[in-house]
């Protein structure tokens, strides 16, 4: 079980942060990839809510393929946390919420010297996020 990578977007589609741990195949230029990812999420979110046969509660949560699973968490302010893991990982909404509340909000939003709306420069944020993900029960150092 493992975590492949993580994206953090704001409500305007700006990629605030990207980290990867195990990724064997690259999609192309990172900037293009972020736009693709954001565009896909935007479309899938509205599609999911339109097609829902019942009243929607949380909206789009995850999708999976035969090789990986993409987990999604969005706040009412439009901050989106996206994590790709392998298939053995179950629902991790609480993990994504923790990344938002204990890492992004604590270390970036509350720091008046960290400007919002652009890629996070904070080294503290990057390293805390890295330690947190590595400490997750479903993260193993070897991709598998």
């Amino acid at each position, binding site marked *: 079980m493992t975590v492949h990578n993580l994206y953090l977007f704001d409500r305007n589609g700006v990629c605030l942060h990207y980290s990867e741990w195990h990724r064997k195949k690259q999609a192309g230029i990172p900037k293009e990839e972020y736009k693709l990812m954001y565009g896909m999420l935007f479309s899938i979110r509205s599609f999911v809510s339109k097609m829902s046969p019942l009243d929607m509660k949380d909206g789009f949560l995850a999708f999976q393929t035969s090789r990986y699973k993409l987990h999604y968490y969005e706040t009412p302010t439009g*901050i989106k946390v996206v994590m790709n893991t392998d298939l053995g990982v179950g629902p991790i909404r609480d993990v994504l919420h923790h990344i938002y509340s204990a890492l992004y909000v604590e270390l970036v939003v509350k720091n008046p010297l960290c400007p919002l709306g652009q890629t996070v420069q904070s080294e503290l944020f990057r390293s805390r996020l890295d330690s947190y993900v590595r400490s997750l029960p479903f993260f193993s150092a070897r991709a598998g």
Partner: protein
Amino acid sequence: MSRQANRGTESKKMSSELFTLTYGALVTQLCKDYENDEDVNKQLDKMGFNIGVRLIEDFLARSNVGRCHDFRETADVIAKVAFKMYLGITPSITNWSPAGDEFSLILENNPLVDFVELPDNHSSLIYSNLLCGVLRGALEMAVARQLPLRFPTVPQVQMAVEAKFVQDTLKGDGVTEIRMRFIRRIEDNLPAGEE
């Protein structure tokens, strides 16, 4: 400097006197820097706005409140959760307009104005205007779910609201009243250049 990574929903305790005096020092300094009350009011609103856009993230991180479906739900969350969390008071909600797009928050006591008396030469100063800015900034970032309609992409919209003081105990009124008015929804769009 090491920081607590996870505080959960606990709040750090701080002396309310320190808070009130700090706010008072801020307003006093602004009055010295800008010679007229109108400019001070504008600055307070602007500062409040900048606080609000960040404060809303902290609020969402700590309160587990989801999206508000309409303005009434928003009003409830503001009065019962947000004000309680940040200022320790619970204003009451009254005076809804017939269209449901305006309401008033009545504050029996306002922690910002403990010990404060407005001098005569500052009669048009809106002392607590920072609060209006905070409300504006926070709501502009918060997203309300709109019912999916006939358009192919469903907008997740933010709210532009106006907040202003209509009664103020500092000016002799019995209570402090903030009037909140819903102006419009701002559409959430794809970044420019996407088709």
